[in-house]
């Protein structure tokens, strides 16, 4: 996937024969024939293309993805350019361990992980060239890496080497695909846990690989518990992340006085361990903590505390001694409170993740309690950010203490089930941000319908809703509703044409104290913003055939720069249009070019949809809890496949067409590119 590092212009070009006519010519193309990124053409004549794909049972037949769970099917899909070039040829298909360009130059032999290549007769038509490479027989992971890097190769001349005319998905610096170890399972290391105290509020429960003496410096994950919780209640995270190569330290957290005190203990414990690593626990950690790779995870008041601690450093209110702000690579809040509000409880300029339990009976998310609304912290984060919402998870389900799970509502999740999900998401987050495995980012936005790993709870009660937003450098915002409040104008200054009804644009803050469906509260169920917050979007009633048409800004017309169309949406809780049909809400995502051609794909065709709200009562009358946004990221190549004549250099608008009745919240319409 060379494009992910060095070019925004090439991948879609490779996929679109009409805009890349040179790509349809015969084998051994000159290097200049394709708009390849500098440095990518190390092996002359080799076609660097996208091949790895997830097969779909119907059009668009395949979705370009990079990450595959071990035990799951992995496919190859030839793009139209390669089909045109290779139609009628018998080719060999290889799955090989990833090599960078230099390694390929040094050794071009193809060694298939399956014992030998599969063969394929290239035929006319896209669907005929979606080929399963592995049904799930190959193990994922690679030592302490969650992903096993793979390169996918089409050996056109069938000579068993990567040579001119062949196609490869991979090489460069990044693999073409990643085969992921089952994330909830423990990693390769045995773990040692030790507890010590250096004084009041310096009690630390430390987990580290048993063979740490043989390992280089390790990332540090700090866990800050919540109020009335205990620092010894995070074994599930400590053992898991340490088994994958982290040093995890869970500390006593001074939460009862308040959030400032809690943040102080996050800071003081981080400082203490870094400053005293040579001596604590008999010196076993001496030189083993990489202070430039730190994650802060906080729960509840501690979840707000870690965000506040980051903000204290950022604003200069606290000057760290043994680390610096840029060393904090990830801040994660589990069911956080929001006592301090928009100016103090926020993590800016750092990857941020949020966990929300739908059945949380403490930080409950009801409209009557701003400090109980977790999403506000997520909305303030301005860098890469993730949100993971679990229907049925209670406040206490996130720790492993023996007390109540502090839950109310139907279909509650056990602690065991909740912890499996935590491991399934925390590990990719940590591997991405502390170990540099960008390929696992997909774990944090792909919907479970099409990307559910193994060793996860089988209960139908488990619903996981994800929000994802990459950093600004990887996205072109078409409309995030933060400026230009007129409903016919996008935040990027282009037009928005709506045929939906009842459209209201405003701050995502329920304007009363209940989730009851009431006239005069168009933002009912919205808890993304509290007083002083600015997160805004639109709500509207949808019906089949109704559309929202977002004109693309000039910078968005050339789609070859991007890999995905992205948006986030939620069903409005307790609205009659929502309660009439409880289930996933579908929509069509379309693009229109300057000649009026329309390419379209349904979200459901890519295994995506918008879940109904968690069916919890209280907080007024009716059933349904806070509106839960989910991000839908549509693979551009899959979308454009529906209209082969589409001019990807001249896209003019994004159209969202609804296929059923509903009351919908919508935000963050954007074009994005993968890492």
């Amino acid at each position: 996937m060379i494009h992910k590092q060095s070019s925004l212009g090439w991948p879609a070009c490779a996929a679109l024969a009409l805009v890349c006519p040179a790509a349809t010519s015969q084998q051994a193309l000159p290097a200049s024939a394709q708009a390849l990124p500098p440095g990518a053409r190390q092996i002359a004549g080799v076609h660097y293309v996208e091949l790895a794909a997830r097969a779909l049972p119907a059009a668009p037949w395949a979705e370009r993805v990079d990450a595959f769970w071990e035990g799951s099917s992995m496919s190859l899909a030839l793009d139209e350019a390669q089909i045109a070039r290779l139609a009628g040829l018998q080719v060999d298909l290889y799955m090989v361990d990833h090599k960078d360009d230099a390694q390929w130059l040094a050794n071009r032999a193809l060694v298939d992980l399956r014992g030998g290549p599969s063969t394929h007769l290239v035929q006319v038509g896209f669907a005929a060239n979606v080929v399963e490479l592995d049904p799930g027989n190959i193990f994922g992971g690679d030592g302490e890496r969650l992903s096993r890097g793979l390169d996918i190769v089409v050996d056109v001349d069938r000579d068993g080497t990567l040579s001119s005319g062949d196609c490869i998905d991979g090489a460069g610096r990044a693999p073409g695909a990643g085969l992921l170890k089952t994330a909830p399972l423990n990693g390769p290391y045995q773990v040692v846990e030790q507890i010590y105290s250096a004084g009041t509020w310096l009690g630390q429960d430390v987990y580290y690989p048993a063979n740490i003496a043989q390992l280089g410096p390790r990332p540090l994950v700090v866990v800050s518990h919540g109020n009335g919780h205990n620092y010894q209640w995070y074994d599930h995270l400590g053992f898991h992340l340490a088994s994958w190569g982290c040093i995890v330290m869970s500390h006593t957290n001074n939460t009862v006085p308040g959030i400032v005190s809690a943040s102080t203990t996050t800071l003081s414990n981080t400082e203490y361990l870094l400053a005293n690593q040579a001596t604590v626990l008999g010196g076993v950690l001496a030189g083993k903590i990489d202070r430039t790779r730190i994650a802060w995870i906080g729960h509840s008041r501690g979840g707000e505390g870690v965000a506040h601690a980051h903000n204290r450093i950022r604003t200069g209110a606290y000057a760290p001694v043994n680390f610096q702000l840029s060393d904090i690579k990830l801040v994660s809040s589990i069911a956080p409170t929001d006592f301090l509000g928009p100016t103090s409880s926020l993590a800016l300029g750092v990857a941020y993740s949020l966990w929300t339990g739908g059945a949380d009976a403490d930080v409950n998310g009801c409209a009557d309690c701003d400090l109980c609304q977790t999403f506000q912290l997520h909305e303030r984060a301005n860098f890469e950010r993730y949100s993971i919402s679990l229907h049925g998870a209670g406040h206490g389900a996130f720790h492993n203490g023996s007390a109540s799970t502090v839950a109310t509502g139907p279909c509650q999740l056990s602690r065991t089930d909740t912890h499996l999900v935590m491991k399934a998401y925390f590990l990719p987050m940590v591997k991405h941000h502390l170990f540099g495995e960008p390929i696992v980012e997909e774990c944090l936005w792909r919907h479970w319908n099409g990307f559910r790993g193994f060793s996860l709870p089988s209960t139908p009660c488990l619903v996981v809703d994800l929000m994802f937003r990459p950093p600004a450098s990887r996205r072109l915002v078409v409309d995030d509703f933060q400026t230009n409040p007129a409903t016919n104008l996008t935040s990027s200054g282009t037009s928005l044409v709506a045929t939906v009804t009842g459209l209201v644009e405003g701050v995502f803050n329920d304007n009363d104290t209940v989730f009851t469906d009431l006239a005069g509260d168009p933002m009912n169920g919205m808890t993304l913003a509290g007083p002083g917050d600015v997160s805004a979007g639109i709500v509207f009633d949808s019906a089949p055939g109704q559309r929202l048409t977002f004109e693309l800004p000039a910078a968005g017309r050339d789609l070859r720069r991007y890999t995905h169309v992205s948006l986030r949406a939620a069903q409005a809780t307790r609205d009659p249009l929502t309660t009439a049909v409880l289930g996933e809400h579908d929509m069509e995502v379309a693009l229109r070019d300057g000649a009026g051609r329309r390419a379209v794909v349904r979200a459901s065709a890519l295994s995506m949809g918008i879940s109904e709200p968690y069916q919890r009562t209280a907080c007024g009358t009716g059933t349904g809890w806070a509106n839960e946004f989910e991000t839908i990221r549509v693979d551009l190549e899959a979308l454009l496949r529906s209209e082969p004549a589409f001019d990807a250099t001249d896209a003019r608008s994004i159209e969202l067409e609804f296929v059923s009745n509903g009351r919908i919240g919508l935000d963050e319409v954007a074009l994005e590119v993968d890492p």
Partner: protein
Amino acid sequence: MKKALFHVPAACLLVAAATWAVREPAPVRLPERQPAPDAAQDGDARKIAAGGGALEAAPGVLRLVAAAPFTLQKPYDHVWRLEAPQVWSGWLVALEADPALCAPRQTPEPVLVAGLQTAARVNHGVLGRVVAVLPCDERLAGAPCAELARSWWWSAPALPEQLDEAALEAARSALPPGAIHAVGEAEWSAARARGGETIAVLDETELWRVAAAWILEHAPEDRETAQGLLVPLEGR
């Protein structure tokens, strides 16, 4: 490797007892620390259904079970109030309270107050049995140190670190009759007898380890909290 063994509470008590001396709390020190500059609240119309708004009456201290004065050689900051005064002395207490007021939660909790001084709860007191550190600070608390531990009440839910003298004064003024638990002579004598002599220790860490032993004695249901405070000390 298994988790480190906890110190046995009896041993801790013996260590603490060996350092006790018979004397009343030392003179107070003036507050020396101001709240962090970024700790200011938004102050706008935030909805706090869980009860964190204006301070209101919330009676609920039922009995002072044990009380012992303490003195420190090294002070620490009492972050359980906005002024964060330095603590050199005070009372270690065990008391019985309405369990409903003690239940831990993430939203604002009632704040335990004696006189006009906030008490630091060492355990939450899930069954209403609370061990707390009450710093003596006559200037802030408005009562002689010896009298401070004889007037207990709960404020309405709030974050202690956000409460200052004025807020506490206003809250106390608004209390209905009977909201303050005044410790009578018999109760006081019994509590003092159970509490023993002055706890003279080095610092906050040693004080809280004594408090942990009190939790094991007076509120064993919160032993997990106590055990967490009694893990082996390093670097001292």
